[in-house]
């Protein structure tokens, strides 16, 4: 296997995007994605069974397209990487089975990869804002020391500390109920704004007054926060289910009084609550763990207010915020390939073909052992 500039094909199917990406070392050759998002619109959220059916039908065409776009053949590929978790169990299963079949048919080594860590892996691709990493004498770009990652999407909300992207990642905090993107979808439905909720709320919120209503910031009371010396149980964790309920109550109150619902104000106030608590807790976690560079990942990275407030707060705390291009923030195969290439270059052994997908794979498992 070519371990210095490996050609790696990455497969992603943990949610509603079927992704196949191909990288050579740290060079992105293609990022081919087929999304089933349109099929979920009428349900107002991702339906796992519909996503799984779509993955099955999209996989081979997406693979074929990726190979064409990158002008490579499967023969040339050095290794295959696949998301083995966390994610929707039935959706993961399709990508994992396809990846294993690919490994059997080609005889290439297979790496089972952690989806969350892969979101950070895109920071290592050339030509991106690579998390402040440096490149010396043509060597592969390196991630900065003291790197953190803030991942916000419809499926997850996490703050990670990356000591080594190939074998030492720590979860500092995460949502204990809904993901932030899920909260956006639910609130968008309450406000009649359609799916996906993130862009819809972001747009309407621009015309509203975020201070008109104050919605709760979950898990920010002292009993959950504690102090830096004696941290509470949920110091860096989030909760969005109470916020969603508060929005529903607020709407009901307007209705009960037969008043017009101030949709833009509610959207703005909701968004402010989400973005405020995400950015404040993320920055707190970074400060208290010596993190100097933070990479933003996940689909909610597209949210204008999240980017604005997080970069303000990072800047005043002396932390650099890095935001990859949006098509690399949302779920994709390129991030899986990018992390796969890092594992190959670091000499990590492949996972083989006996592993099981794990819908709740912890971030401490960057790749599965054989």
């Amino acid at each position, binding site marked *: 296997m070519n371990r210095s500039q490996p050609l790696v094909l990455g497969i992603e199917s943990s949610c509603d995007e079927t992704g196949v990406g191909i990288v050579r070392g740290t060079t992105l050759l293609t990022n081919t994605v087929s999304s089933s998002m349109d099929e979920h619109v009428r349900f107002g959220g991702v339906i796992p069974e519909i996503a799984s059916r779509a993955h*099955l039908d999209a996989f081979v065409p997406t*693979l*074929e397209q990726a190979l064409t776009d990158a002008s490579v053949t499967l023969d040339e590929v050095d290794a295959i990487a696949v998301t083995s978790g966390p994610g929707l169990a039935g959706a993961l*299963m399709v990508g994992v*089975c*396809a990846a294993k*079949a690919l490994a059997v048919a080609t005889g290439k080594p297979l790496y089972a990869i952690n989806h969350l860590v892969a979101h950070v892996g895109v920071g290592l691709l050339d030509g991106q804002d690579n998390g402040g990493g440096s490149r010396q004498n043509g060597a592969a770009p390196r991630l900065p020391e003291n790197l953190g990652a803030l991942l916000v999407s419809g499926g997850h909300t996490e703050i990670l500390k990356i000591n080594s992207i190939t074998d030492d990642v720590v979860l500092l905090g995460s949502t204990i109920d809904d993901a932030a993107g899920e909260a956006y979808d639910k609130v968008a439905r309450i406000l009649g704004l359609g799916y996906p909720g993130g862009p819809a709320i972001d747009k309407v919120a621009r015309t509203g007054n975020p201070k008109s209503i104050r919605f709760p910031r979950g898990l920010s009371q002292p009993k959950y926060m504690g102090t830096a010396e004696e941290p509470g149980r949920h110091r860096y964790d989030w909760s969005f289910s109470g916020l969603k309920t508060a929005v529903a109550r607020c709407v009901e109150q307007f*209705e009960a009084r037969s008043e017009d619902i101030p949709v833009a104000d509610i959207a703005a106030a909701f968004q402010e609550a989400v973005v405020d608590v995400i950015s404040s807790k993320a920055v707190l976690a970074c400060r208290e763990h010596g993190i100097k560079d933070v990479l933003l990942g996940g689909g909610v990275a597209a949210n204008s207010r999240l980017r604005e407030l997080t970069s303000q707060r990072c800047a005043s705390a002396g932390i650099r915020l890095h935001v990859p291009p949006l098509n690399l923030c949302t779920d994709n195969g390129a991030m899986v390939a990018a992390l796969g290439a890092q594992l190959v270059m670091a000499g990590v052994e492949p996972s083989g073909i006996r592993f099981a997908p794990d819908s709740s794979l912890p971030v401490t498992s960057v790749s599965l052992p054989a």
Partner: protein
Amino acid sequence: MLILAVDTSAVASAALVSDDVPEGVLASFSTEDTRSHAEVLAPGIQEMLASAEITGEDIDALVVGVGPGPFTGLRSGIATARTLAFVWGKPLHGMVSLDAVALEVAESTAAVPEFLVVTDARRKEVYWARYTLEDGRLPHLEDGPHVSFAADLPDLPAFGAGAGLYADSLDCHPEFAQEQPDALYLGQFALARLAAGNGLLDSTPLYLRESDAQVPGPRKRAL
């Protein structure tokens, strides 16, 4: 003609079948387990190919059971077969998974002119199909596959693990009370059909049920 057959509609199984060898079977494997297909299928196929000293180039076509069967398991076989067929550049055919049990019945001493093949559809339902059998012919799918409650099936001898599960309401043949669709029979059935000049299905899964998803109704107004 050498066929790699795969079925994961109930258990995970795969087989290499050929009409050029006396027994018709070069190698096969199947598991008991109905829930670990993603782990066992690819290693099983890899070992089977290695033990038979067969590579993708030697295979003329692939056949996959397209169900009906529990969705996640069913998809693991179809995803596997589609990917293998794509990489090897070989044709892929689909077969109703229940056909495997039908052929097994036809080749047994329990064969009767008309019968049901029944498998477990979970949620207290079964997948089933009605077959007829003429002397010296392949079983013929007359009706189905369907998904129903066992109590609502036609009153005919019933074969397969679904019949065993609901033996109180079905005329279950005891020797077939645990029988699951097996790629071995599916592959042989496919060979026989192709030899007779009959077409096969494509690899579209027979889900028979929609996803459980409900389109949310309008939110209730507070008043």
